């Protein structure tokens, strides 16, 4: 017995696997028992096996430092995060509802703007949005879908409520790691997969491919679909190459493409030019087309916007979809759900104060030591103020920033992110904070949600920052069918004491 769960200090936060020291939650019971049976040496062996698997499988992400690209191995913890299927089904429904409303919102914003006219969404918010693309006004993409791929970040607070922290509608990344994490786990802890019903996650590339095919402007069985990457210097390049490989599509760079006079997009091949039907682009709007956006961008391709606006090209995600990815717009999502769908939001938002409202602003400014302040349009955890951890100088700096540009800031209470046991280098376990990023694919006629998602862990003790660019790691995420397991293996764990009772 190596891990002593009685010693596991998990009382200060909601722990995903344990209700208290030594008390695993029902969905995690088998896992806890299994880990219990492993000796220190065996644990170390599994941990090293995972590290090796990651190196051999080449799972890496790129960081740019000292003028060079460094491929870093993906930091990974072998203890999975477990979610009961019943809880997941509710979450899944909530995500589908949310993304449906977001797509309706984007379409509305670029067309009739009913939600503004009906005074549900403030007009001035739109005027100041840096992600509003005037070029998209009047556009109606095929199936009326704008955010085809959405990565929403979910966090759990101390009371166990799962909140949506943000929706990434531009180029969310991480899904390749979700799938690869599972492969690593199957190599490292295969025994657990034999007697636990863990729902599979590897369907994603096929679902994504089908969705992209459905976007084709030409009615073909096999439209030409490509993935557009900014290139090897991008931190998510591994994922770009991975997705292209999994879907069997070409991984292209901007210079491989051109838009001809017929407004169709082509790629340059050794056999001559070949028409491109759909681009899964992993480049931000502003770099997509130098004809329309940043004139000096070498990452994109001239004319893509023209091709898309004329309906000759499918783009995922649609340019301009980022208008709903703004952290201030985020605060209006529950209202959007009510407005467009006539439903109450299944998944709650984290309570938010918008600095543009004078009342909210004075509350935020008075509580800078307690709240988290976020700029409207940063991702990757940059440009944030975590009030309780900030120095007085940092707080004063943010006071100035907020007063100068209140529209650009919002604040939320500092959440006590939930934890899960994480294996340390000395084979002890400690709680580490985590979040969850599921991915939602919208086809128009149907919506697909990944089983679970990518669990990101802040590997440093006490840290709340889970981004891989800032020292975060990952865990495999298991959606477990507890009921099915109880039927299939009635004689294991707690029921055993009852059946062995007769004597």
């Amino acid at each position, binding site marked *: 017995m190596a891990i002593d769960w009685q010693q596991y200090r998990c009382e200060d936060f909601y722990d995903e696997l344990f209700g208290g020291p030594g008390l695993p939650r029902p969905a995690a019971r088998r896992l806890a028992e299994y880990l219990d049976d492993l000796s220190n040496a065996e644990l170390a062996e599994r941990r090293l096996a995972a590290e090796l698997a990651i190196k051999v499988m*080449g799972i890496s992400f790129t960081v740019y430092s000292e003028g060079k690209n460094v491929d870093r191995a993906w930091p990974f913890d072998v203890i999975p995060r477990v979610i009961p299927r019943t809880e997941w089904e509710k979450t899944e429904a909530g995500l589908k509802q949310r993304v449906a409303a977001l797509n309706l919102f984007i379409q509305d914003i670029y067309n009739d703007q009913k939600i503004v006219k009906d005074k549900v969404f403030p007009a001035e918010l739109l005027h100041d949005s840096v992600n509003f693309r005037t070029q998209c006004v009047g556009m109606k993409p095929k199936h009326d879908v704008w955010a085809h791929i959405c990565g929403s970040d979910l966090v759990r607070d101390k009371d166990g409520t799962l909140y949506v922290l943000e929706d990434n509608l531009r180029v969310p990344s991480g899904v390749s790691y979700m799938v690869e994490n599972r492969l690593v786990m199957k190599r490292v802890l295969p025994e657990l997969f034999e007697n636990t019903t863990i729902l599979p996650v590897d369907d994603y590339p096929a679902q994504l491919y089908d969705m992209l095919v459905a976007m084709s402007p030409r009615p073909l069985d096999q439209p030409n679909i490509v993935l557009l990457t900014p*290139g*090897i210097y991008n931190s998510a*390049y591994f994922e770009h*190459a991975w997705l*292209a*490989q999994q879907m069997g599509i*070409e*991984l*292209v*760079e901007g*210079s*491989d*493409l*051109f838009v001809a006079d017929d407004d169709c997009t082509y*790629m*340059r*091949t*050794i*056999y*001559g030019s070949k028409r491109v039907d759909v681009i899964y682009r992993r480049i931000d709007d502003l770099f997509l087309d130098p004809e329309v956006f940043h004139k000096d961008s070498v990452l994109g391709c*001239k004319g893509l916007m023209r091709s898309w606006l004329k309906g000759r090209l499918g783009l995922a995600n649609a340019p301009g979809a980022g208008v709903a990815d703004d952290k201030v717009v985020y605060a209006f999502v529950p209202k959007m759900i009510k407005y467009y769908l006539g439903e109450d939001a299944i998944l709650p938002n984290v309570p938010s104060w918008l600095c543009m409202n004078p009342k909210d602003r004075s509350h935020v400014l008075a509580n800078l030591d307690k709240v988290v302040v976020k700029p409207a349009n940063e991702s990757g955890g940059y440009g944030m103020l975590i009030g309780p951890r900030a120095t007085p100088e940092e707080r004063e700096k943010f006071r100035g920033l907020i007063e100068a540009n209140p529209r650009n800031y919002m604040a939320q209470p500092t959440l006590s992110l939930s934890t899960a046991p994480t294996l340390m280098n000395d084979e002890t376990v400690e709680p580490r904070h985590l979040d969850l990023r599921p991915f939602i694919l919208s086809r128009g006629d149907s919506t697909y949600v990944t089983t679970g998602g990518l669990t990101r862990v802040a590997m440093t003790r006490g840290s709340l920052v889970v981004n891989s660019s800032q020292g975060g790691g990952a865990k495999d995420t298991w959606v477990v069918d507890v009921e099915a397991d109880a039927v299939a293996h009635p004689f294991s764990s707690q029921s055993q004491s009852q059946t062995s009772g007769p004597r």
Partner: protein
Amino acid sequence: MLSRVADSLYWFGRYLQRAENTARLINVNANLLLDLPKGMTMGWEPLIQIVGADETYKEHYSDVTEANILRFLMLDERNDGSILSSLHAAREILRTVRDSMPREVWEKLNDLHYFVQGRGEMVTSRTRRQEFLQRVIDGSVLVYGTLTTNMSRDVGFQFLKVGTNVEQADMTTRILDVRSTSLIDSSGRHDLAPFYNIQWMSVLRSLTAYQMYRRHVRARVNRTGVLRFLLQNREFPRSVMFCLGAVGACLPHLPQNRNVERTLWRVRALVQDANIERLVEKGLSELIDEIQIGLGEMHAAFAEAYFRKPSA
């Protein structure tokens, strides 16, 4: 296949071959210098001419010393053709075509790159230098071997093969050019005759051709024999004729292009029809210039036919 990927694979073949050839070249020159009598100062300069980097060298170094030249050829990042630069370029290319190459190739090349980058200090000691160069040669061969045993013979592979062979034909002609003009003239001094021959032997050795030459030619090593062997032999993989044949063998697998075919036939005819006996007297350097121009045209034809970037 995307034009950019074809271009990348072509250059990957060239860079890998270049690193290996440069290592061999230095190794053989070091051995040759040990054999030459004191006072004969052929030295290291011809190597800079062979790789065609005189200008770059003069830009960065004020004097011509063994240490400087070797550093320049092996480790200088300012020299595009140095071993380190070639491996670095090959590695960067491999990143961009990660989805079309076997994963193992990446690991092997990565290993070699880190070795060269990390063990540069070995260059200063003569005994350790040889060990270093051998490791570069072995490493390149390992990468190439891993590649040829694991990669499908698709169009991508054909481009890699074209690159490898164009690079080898280029290097072989460069070595012949520089060595045949800078070699010492034996006509005046009888006592230098034995050295005259070891120089031609070293030309063969720098292309690992000595043993094969003996098997094919069965005659003593002399200028005519060496020239004929390295230019026209159809069986030795580093002869110009062989390389051009290998490029030709790739063409049926690629989309047909008249211009590519034409440039290849032209340079092949040039090599094939050369009258070696006559060349020994004069005209060698002109012929080699012509072959080099022909190779350049062939490269341009490939680039135009298959690698074109969209006009921005």
